[in-house]
């Protein structure tokens, strides 16, 4: 039915305008600010040891969060879609909480739990553990903030597919790990990758929650977004935006990756 029509071009135009105004222009601002002082200034900022350390920490926290949430996401998706469990709705809602919570509060609750005035402090002291205002805390809140992404992208795929293939395999005596690896995983791998990419994007960019819990120790607990803020507050606008471009660049790499993944995912479905 639908032949070419003015509606199509109108919608495409409107969408393009929206994307241009809401996404491309802010991106342009970031890039133009970053290169305000010329390319060599830009290069200087990026090669600064603190920048490199922040990049390292960001990548580490992101990696840790993605790994933990992938493992969790797979188990949760398995638990909540492969079995009829009465309280799965409640669990699903709990998994969604981090989406609904203000990042600032997210950081705060970790600080108020594991920090010096937190109720868990005596326990942590006993074991000589330091969680908040250290890399552990950063990793923890990053995990928190990005927790739902993987579970929630994998779950619909598993849900929609039903359990028959797994049952068939289990009937033949296959164990849990074999079933997952041979039967389930091939179905969800693209969804999983997509979830990982979303999780990564968000983990890299998280500012609010990490800010509360980081302590901002230069060269120790500064992530890239935090470094951006410090540079900015230090009247180094161009430097701040230069550091932001690392994140933008990482994001773009991810997004390209995502497009490839999505493409493969959908062609795999055919």
């Amino acid at each position: 039915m639908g032949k070419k029509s003015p509606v199509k071009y109108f919608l495409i135009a409107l969408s393009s305008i929206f994307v241009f105004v809401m996404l491309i222009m802010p991106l342009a601002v970031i890039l133009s600010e970053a290169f305000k002082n010329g390319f060599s200034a830009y290069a200087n900022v990026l090669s600064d040891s603190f920048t490199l350390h922040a990049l390292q920490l960001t990548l580490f926290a992101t990696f840790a969060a993605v790994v933990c949430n992938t493992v969790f996401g797979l188990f949760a998706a398995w638990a909540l879609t492969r079995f009829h469990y009465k309280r799965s709705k409640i669990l699903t809602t709990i998994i969604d909480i981090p989406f609904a919570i203000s990042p600032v509060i997210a950081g705060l609750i970790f600080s108020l739990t594991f920090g010096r005035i937190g109720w868990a402090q005596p326990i942590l002291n006993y074991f000589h553990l330091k969680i908040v205002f250290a890399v552990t805390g950063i990793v923890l809140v990053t995990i928190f903030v990005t927790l739902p992404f993987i579970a929630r992208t994998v779950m619909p795929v598993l849900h929609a597919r039903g359990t028959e293939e797994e049952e068939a395999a289990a009937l033949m005596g296959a164990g849990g790990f074999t079933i997952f690896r041979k039967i389930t995983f091939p179905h969800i791998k693209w969804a999983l990758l997509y979830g990982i990419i979303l999780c990564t994007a968000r983990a890299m960019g998280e500012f609010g929650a990490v800010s509360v819990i980081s302590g901002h120790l230069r060269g120790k607990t500064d992530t890239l977004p935090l470094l951006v803020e410090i540079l900015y507050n230090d009247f180094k606008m161009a430097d701040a935006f230069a550091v932001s471009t690392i994140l933008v660049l990482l994001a773009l790499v991810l997004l390209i990756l995502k497009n490839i993944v999505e493409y493969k995912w959908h062609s795999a479905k055919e």
Partner: protein
Amino acid sequence: GCKNDNESASSNQLVNVSYDPTRELYKNYNELFAKHWKEQTGQDVTITQSHGGSGAQARSVIEGNDADVVTLALEYDVTAIENAGLINKGWQNKFPHDSAPYTSTIVFLVRKGNPKNIRDWNDLIQPGVGIITPNPKTSGGARWNYLAAWAYANEKYQSNEDQMKDYMKKLFANVLVLDSGARGATTTFVENGQGDVLLAWENEAYLSLKEHPDEFEIVSPSISILAQPSVAVVDKIAEERGTSKLASEYLNYLYSPEAQKVAAENFYRPTDENILKQYADKFDLNIKLANINDPLFGGWNKVHETHFKDGGIFDQIYQKN
């Protein structure tokens, strides 16, 4: 050199939790101090800096950020750490000048040529003047802005509180944007072209001027306030980590002539009179400076109670009516 057996390896690590924007200042000072410490003890010292909003930084220390020393924007913030039991009482007297090694004051940053002809506080309440200042509730710096204006009003209206409040009301009625932090306000004024005048720390005004020399000028009002960023050793943590001596020396050395010069270079007013005089061309020494401990204010605690607490005078200004 000689090795001190009492000190563990970690004692050469120092964490200084500071506020925005002292990054350059302490970057320079830390180099200076490291050299000094090496000369003194033969040991290397590693100093880790932390920067953020003054209040948030204080909170982070209270909540578990292990700072050996804090160098914050407000005495009030340090007191909060004291109240949490991490700093011993009487820290204000541990170092000279109320434990404030350098000071600053509040000045006006106006657009080049001062088109609205803003010379003093009174010009700010003229209709059509747009003011940019951060929110005293969320920004330490903004509290100094507010208190400087209060000092001016006190002078002008001879302590008539109603008139003073009226003045403050008019002043804040002219405020266009109440950013949450000092830097946000500066961006709003400098980058986004909002308002005619930015109330700012002198050092921050200079930083802006450095970035945009041809666009702005600094106006010194007739009266302002002596902004004293406080420093203190976080006793409990320093003791735990065995850095008390190092921490003390770190702060103490801030008062040395070399360090005072570094402060001046970074647009902070040295407390050392001699050094300050050397930079007389840089800082307007004619501004009359009120002090937080003047009877008008009666110290930070009282100021907080009267002005900034929920329902205090600042809230009354914004009372909905």
